[in-house]
């Protein structure tokens, strides 16, 4: 009556010798709450001892349905949601979104507004890369980088707070302009930040760049070839790390990027170390752009004044003129008026190309909006690069890809 319990596998392993030497593959769930997966990413790993034989990223833990939410609100109401895409660089996402909708409206914003947007995007890039570096340092075992990077980010947050009213969820842009003009003396303080930031950046990078321990963990690890990088649709520093010099700020300039002089750093080998080096260099270039933008910071309007059906009138007008009051009500309740049509716009965000594909049937609410998030596309290469690496290298590769889950899952 008593039957011996047989493990499902054991029957197949008839050969005694192989039973002795062959180890079973282990499947391991890394995440969704693992410190090195930077958020709620789960990697379903299959391990042969320490070697990863397959890696399957499982996404969706942070899914909020942003694209559907967008269909139910006016274009301006969606701005706070773009903060929560790449929450490490909310300003850059705000800017990319606003430009996408403006492209739909065929609206040109004034030079001052463009310059403000360039400055905030680049500041956001610095802040995102600082966090990327700091977190990467922790991933591979260098704590102090994180602390020094955060000290700098705090200074940036102070600047953001002054400009937008919030440190983190900036919601700064509006369709046709920005939420408010730069405060008195703000550009001077940004200049001051850049001044003191460069030496500190060198100090931070010096802790890692020529560090043998850091190099042991990153050089030659997670190599992504040029062809693969293009085939998998990588963008941003991850693509440039593999030696492809694609930068939308250069190749399809928007918001006046064509006026600024800067270099696009690319890597030689496409390993984790190259991606790290690219991020470091990009911060230096961002400082260069900010300085140029501040130097020729244009005066004049900071929102498109003639776009009467798009940008809500200023308070002084709303409170003193009946027409403007009605216009304010119209823009708020009906949304900024767009023509029917389809538009796709990509901006060069810190993590890569953030794209918005908007289908409008006219009116102030998108009919459909698709968000192309760089982190999501960058992650698609994980199964390929992780295969055959050690488990500890997976941590190093993840950190070097520098993704953010708010944007992957949106």
């Amino acid at each position: 009556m008593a039957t011996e319990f047989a493990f499902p596998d054991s029957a197949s392993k008839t050969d005694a010798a192989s039973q002795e030497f062959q180890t079973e593959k282990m499947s391991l769930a890394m995440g969704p709450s693992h410190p090195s997966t930077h958020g709620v990413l789960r990697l379903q790993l299959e391990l042969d001892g320490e070697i990863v034989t397959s890696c399957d990223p499982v996404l969706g833990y942070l899914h909020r349905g942003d694209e559907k939410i967008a269909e139910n609100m006016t274009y301006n109401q969606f701005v706070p949601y773009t903060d929560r895409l790449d929450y490490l660089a909310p300003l850059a996402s705000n800017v990319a979104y606003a430009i996408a909708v403006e492209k739909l409206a065929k609206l040109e914003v004034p030079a001052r507004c463009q310059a403000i947007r360039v400055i905030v995007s680049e500041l956001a890039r610095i802040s995102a890369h600082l966090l990327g570096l700091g977190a990467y340092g922790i991933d591979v075992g260098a704590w102090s980088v994180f602390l020094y990077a955060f000290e700098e980010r705090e200074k940036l947050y102070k600047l953001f707070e002054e400009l937008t009213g919030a440190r983190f969820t900036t919601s700064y842009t509006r369709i046709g302009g920005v939420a408010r003009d730069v405060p008195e003396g703000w550009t001077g303080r940004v200049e001051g930040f850049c001044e003191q930031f460069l030496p500190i950046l060198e100090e931070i990078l010096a802790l890692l760049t020529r560090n043998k321990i850091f190099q042991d963990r990153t050089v030659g690890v997670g190599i992504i070839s040029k062809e693969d990088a293009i085939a998998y649709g990588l963008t941003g520093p991850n693509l440039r790390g593999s030696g492809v010099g694609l930068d939308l700020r250069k190749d399809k300039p928007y918001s006046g990027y064509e006026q600024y002089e800067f270099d696009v750093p690319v890597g030689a080998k496409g390993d984790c170390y190259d991606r790290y080096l690219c991020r470091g260099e990009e911060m230096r270039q961002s400082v260069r752009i900010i300085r140029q933008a501040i130097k020729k910071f244009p005066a004049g309007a900071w929102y498109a004044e003639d776009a009467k059906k798009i940008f809500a009138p200023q308070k002084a007008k709303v409170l003193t003129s009946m027409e403007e009051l009605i216009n304010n009500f119209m823009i708020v309740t009906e949304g900024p008026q767009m023509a029917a049509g389809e538009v796709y716009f990509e901006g060069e965000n810190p993590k890569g190309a953030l794209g918005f594909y908007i289908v409008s049937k006219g009116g102030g609410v998108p009919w459909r909006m698709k968000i192309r998030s760089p982190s999501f596309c960058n992650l698609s290469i994980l199964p390929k690069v992780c295969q055959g690496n050690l488990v500890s290298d997976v941590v190093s590769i993840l950190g070097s890809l520098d993704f953010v889950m708010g944007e992957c899952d949106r």
Partner: protein
Amino acid sequence: MAVIQVERKPLTFAERTYIPQIIGGLKTTLKHFFAPTVTLQYPEERPEIPKGYRGVPTLVKDPHGREKCVSCQLCEFVCPPKAIRITPGEIPAESSSVHVEKGPQAFDIDMLRCIYCGLCQEVCPEEAIFLQNQFSMSGYTRAEMVNNKARLYELGGTLPDQHFKWDKKKAAEEHGNAH
């Protein structure tokens, strides 16, 4: 204006012994060890709040202590997470501001939903709702986190009029008999 290749020089022999980096790292650490601290001893020390900060949304009264909100419900409409609930009400005939016609009977902002985006302040045609300096809110129950009208006015206080609605009102203000 170009694509540049990031520099990667091989490590020298000395660098491969780990020693220069360890010494360099320690130097940096020591430098920061003696540098002034950058952290703030919150809550004893409070951060400086810049002008235009987006804190907890509040309702404000005008310098005469009168309700500014006319219950137009624009803020309720625009609020992306739908945190505001307004029940409009008539202004009683015996009130001195009966000509305003409408005012909020109830005005609730659910701080568990509010994302401090500031859109309500931006759209309000009466400058009645402002995000002010308070940045921390806590409570033990969900009900405590819903700010009702009385609480909103208590938090908001009085702000000077930034703009005068209609010139008529401004003239009246100057004559000291604004209503």
